[in-house]
């Protein structure tokens, strides 16, 4: 992001907030009017607007209500409390990171295998590509239930779904990355009589790093989505997905929106973190643009 973009971005954000306020007033006004009609009174617009922005269970909470909900969830509770958003975010984050690590490791290993074995390439790659078109998240509840009946609960089932989702971007990106060295570079390695392992360590892996980081950003976002969805149908009581579900059961819209923004912040932080590591690593390798 460049500094010159700051003004346009802030303008667009301001417009979004303004539209949000108008939407909140419009969507919440119905309920206030019904209340007034039931009480046999009339409400004027000047009375209506503050009322619509301070409801307990609004149809659409106003931005400041969400901000307050988020602030109370983050700073207003002890971190260990079950009402603390930090605690729920940590539950989600730990499963996300565990799954991300498993998925990334598996993706890199399989990519190395695919690049070195033509039979593996022809066997696995078509299925890996086809599996991208399958809505894998649909099996999330099943994995949870199956694992629970096998006695595995807690972090692991969620991590498996997160791993499954982060696996394919890494696999596809790494296969592409490990194949970037061109014939000239491969010939040079051969002229030094480098073995396969040396070609992998000295040429293929370093030149695949830009691709790896690009896929890691996609993968960690996918892992987070996977974990959140995995928390939905499992009867889980902890995690951002569980907050979403309990909020929707009890009509606690502010709770839903706070959990949603917490998830958004988490996703933004994770992607930014990988971007930071990427810039550091590529700069040290002399690859940075």
């Amino acid at each position, binding site marked *: *992001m460049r500094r*010159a*973009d700051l003004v*346009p*971005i*802030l*303008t*667009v*954000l301001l417009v979004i907030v303004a539209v949000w306020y108008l939407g909140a007033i419009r*969507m919440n006004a119905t309920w206030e009017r019904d209340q007034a009609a039931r009480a046999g009174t009339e409400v004027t617009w000047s009375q209506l607007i503050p009322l619509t922005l301070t409801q307990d269970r609004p*149809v659409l909470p106003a931005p400041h209500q969400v901000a307050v909900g988020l602030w109370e969830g983050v700073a207003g509770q002890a971190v260990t409390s079950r009402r603390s958003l930090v605690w729920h975010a940590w539950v989600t984050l730990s499963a996300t990171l565990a799954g991300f690590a498993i998925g990334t490791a598996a993706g890199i290993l399989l990519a190395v295998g695919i690049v070195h074995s*033509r*039979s593996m*390439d*022809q*066997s*696995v790659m*078509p*299925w890996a590509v*086809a599996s*991208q*078109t*399958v*809505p*894998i*998240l*649909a*099996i999330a*509840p*099943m994995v949870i*239930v*199956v694992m629970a*009946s*096998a006695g595995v609960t807690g972090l692991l089932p969620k991590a498996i779904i997160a791993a499954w989702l982060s696996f394919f971007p890494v696999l596809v990106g790494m296969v592409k990355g490990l194949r970037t060295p061109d014939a000239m570079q491969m010939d040079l390695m051969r002229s030094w009589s480098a073995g396969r392992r040396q070609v992998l360590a000295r040429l293929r892996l370093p030149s695949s790093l830009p691709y790896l980081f690009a896929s890691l*950003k996609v993968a960690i*976002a996918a892992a*987070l*989505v996977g974990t*959140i*969805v995995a928390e*939905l*149908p499992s009867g889980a009581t902890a995690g*951002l*997905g569980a907050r*979403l*579900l309990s*909020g*929707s059961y009890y*009509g606690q*819209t502010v709770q*839903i*929106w706070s*959990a*949603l923004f917490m*998830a*958004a912040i988490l*996703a*933004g932080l994770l*992607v930014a973190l990988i971007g930071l590591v990427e810039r550091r690593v590529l700069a040290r390798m002399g690859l940075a643009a």
Partner: protein
Amino acid sequence: MSAVPIIGVWLGGWAVNIWLSRFDTRASRTLVAVIFGATIITLWEMIVRTYAIPTVILPAPSQIAASFAANGSILWTDFVQTIVKGALTGWLIGAGAAILTAIAIDRSPFLQRGLLPIGNFVAALPIVGIAPILVMWFGFDWQSKAAVVVVMVFFPILVNMVAGLRATDAMQRDLMASWAAPYGASLWKLRLPAAMPFLFNGLKITTTLALIGAIVAEFFGSPTRGMGFRISTAVGRLDLPLVWAEIVVAALAGTLFYGLVAALEKKVTFWHPSQRR
């Protein structure tokens, strides 16, 4: 010794594939992939039977196929409810809205610079979390699922379409200007066609997102039909073969949806280098 035939099938399939992969023709490549898939399914069936794995944990492929055949009408109702009404409607509306928005903000560099970073950021967010809110707003039927899908597919398509509209180079635009082409003509004849490869990239990414959005939204409330509803209730009744049959439907629908968009892409962007043989 019950593991011997399983290992035998595995090694056999592997050996055939190693032998076949040497030819590296179109037919042999297809055959290798098919043999790999068939080996996996055979191994799955053999492992489930040999070790008597309970159906609640992992049903055998034959049980899934039987459930698929027996529940045809249920699966069809769910398919229509979730895929056709929810995912497809939402995808079309979302894609249309994103394309129009991209064309609208294309004339304003200010809006582009403001919207693009936000669009990129939003495209990475767990948008599917918006499902409970939209289910509250639009009710339990397919309209709320379509709304979730609209929100999920909007930003990836928007970002791709805006990038695509910028994809013409100065020389091409100058040529249009030298012919005194008005904005509409240069949009229609030059920039929209040039944007098509980017647009289809976005459209292909979002086919899977659309199915995910429609299915996940049903976990938050649905009428008594739909794939998400069926999966969650069948899991509750431990009717795992039916769950897997739904997954097969989802997988087939996803592949078909993607294949249709890819085929359309081939028709529309036949001139693009990536389509050359």
